[in-house]
């Protein structure tokens, strides 16, 4: 149920983001979701791709620092309060969200959000119990 995210350390150098994206493009790897956490001198690019293992190998081969992290992708009703509903469940069960971001595409009328929880396994159990739809690997590949 967990998905794999790739975190890439990027120093703030012109063209560095382009290098990552063009490398993935050449390897025919598709970016499904992305976000950048930035500081004045470096950033961390976080992406969810269709072929994470291949992506990491390709990146490392080119000297990038990349790390795989477990994340959970959740379907969220695209209406006011949709996200709040999920966060309520999460917070009531004392799970922390370290960061989150959204998918580029939608599978249905619902939005897709990526969560990094401090305890992904517990989060999955709780989400399931609350009948919240979790995106699987297979779901993602068919996007």
């Amino acid at each position, binding site marked *: 149920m967990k998905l794999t995210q790739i*975190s890439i*350390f990027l120093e703030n150098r012109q063209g560095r983001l382009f290098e990552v994206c063009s490398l993935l493009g050449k390897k025919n790897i598709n970016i499904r979701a992305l976000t950048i956490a930035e500081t004045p*001198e*470096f950033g*961390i690019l976080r992406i969810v791709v269709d072929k994470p293992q291949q992506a990491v190998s390709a990146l*490392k081969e080119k000297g990038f620092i990349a790390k795989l992290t477990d994340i959970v992708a959740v379907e969220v009703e695209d209406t006011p309060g949709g996200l709040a509903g999920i966060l309520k469940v999460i917070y009531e069960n004392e799970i922390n969200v370290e960061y989150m971001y959204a998918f580029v595409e939608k599978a249905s009328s619902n939005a897709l959000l990526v969560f990094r929880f401090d305890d992904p396994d517990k989060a999955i159990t709780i989400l399931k119990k609350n009948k919240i739809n979790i995106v699987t690997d297979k779901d993602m590949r068919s996007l």
Partner: protein
Amino acid sequence: MKLSYWNKKIETMDRSLLKKLQLKLLKETITHALNTDFYKNRLKKIGIRSSEDIKSLEDLERIPFTTKDDLRECYPYAHLSVNLKEVVRLHTSSGTTGIPTVVYHTKNDLDGWTDLVTRCIVATGCSSLDVFQNMMSYGLFTGGLGLHYGAERLGMTVIPAASGNTRRQLQLMKDFRTTVVHATPSYMLHIYSKLEEFGFNIKDFNLKKAFLGAEPYSENTRRKIEKLFSIDAYNSYGLSEMNGPGVGFECVYKCGMHIWEDAYILEVIDPKTKKLLREDTEGEIVFTTLNRRATPILRYRTRDLAFIYKGNCKCKRSHRRISRITGRSDDMLIVNGVNVFPSQIEEIIMKIPEVGNNYLVRLEKEGALDKLIVKVEIYSKMFKGDLKELDKLKEKIIAELRSSIIIHPIVELHEPGSLSVSEGKAKRVEDLRPKI
């Protein structure tokens, strides 16, 4: 110009008499040095077993140079010449590999040092009427305490302000009508740049003179400081191995720093061939102590580059003058008055497992102050994909460097491979500060 002296007899002593005095004191120093494990072995090897083996000042040339590494190997006691119960204070320098150099002082040693500093202060025309604000750090760093005791001996009103806290420095200067300050040149410029921000005006002060030391600076910088504050600024020279400040100082004529040759034998050598150089020729300054009982040091290679001025000074002091320090014959960096070797930085950052193999030290000027930037590559296996983790790593590197080199650096994290140099020896230091 009104000339004043603290010890006129010694300060204006005829050079032939001064040389006789030097020989007498050198012999005493050799006797003291032979009490130490370090010099006993070293001098025995060249056939010096007692002061009787020194017949003239020329015999000094037979003695090998003492380096900073030698003194570090002596740590802590191999170069101590007296029983510890006679030692009343010690100072250490910052060490390159964690081991500093130590200088021990007996009561008489401190007395001698203080007297040299008082001579310096008087040579600039100061008197007991002056209010002296000492803006150098107190503690192991010799700059603060050295000037402090010299100024007290003269009877100046001493304000031991120590370094930093610019707002308070300005308030003290204003409230107590400070006439003389002791600071690094960059700190003087920094103070000036903060006047307006802290609500002061140059007219609030009664400043007449500044003693500037602890870092090299140019004649232009001196003139700039003199003009900004409408004061006279005097160049001060010292190093911890030779006590600290008080080794050399400018007199009212500001044409080179008089070296107190009854306390130090001054030599200038070619740092490569180690041959003695003539006056007027730039080389590395070498000192032999003449008035120290606890820590005699023979032919110490300072690594400071300067030359000896030919001819006499108008102040009638017979002690020769050296030029301002123009550079170093090693890779030591001076950052806001604090001495740092690149190897110290390397030692620390290479101990941190998250750091990869490459680093780069960059020095820049930000306003009047120096900025030390340490760029490190992160080790890919240590990357957890977490921003907090990287911030923590940065804080850790800053804290480790700060505790060891006493400078607050700016740390930048980089990707592996981005700092390396593909061929030849990697360049680890980039000094982008304007040249002196």
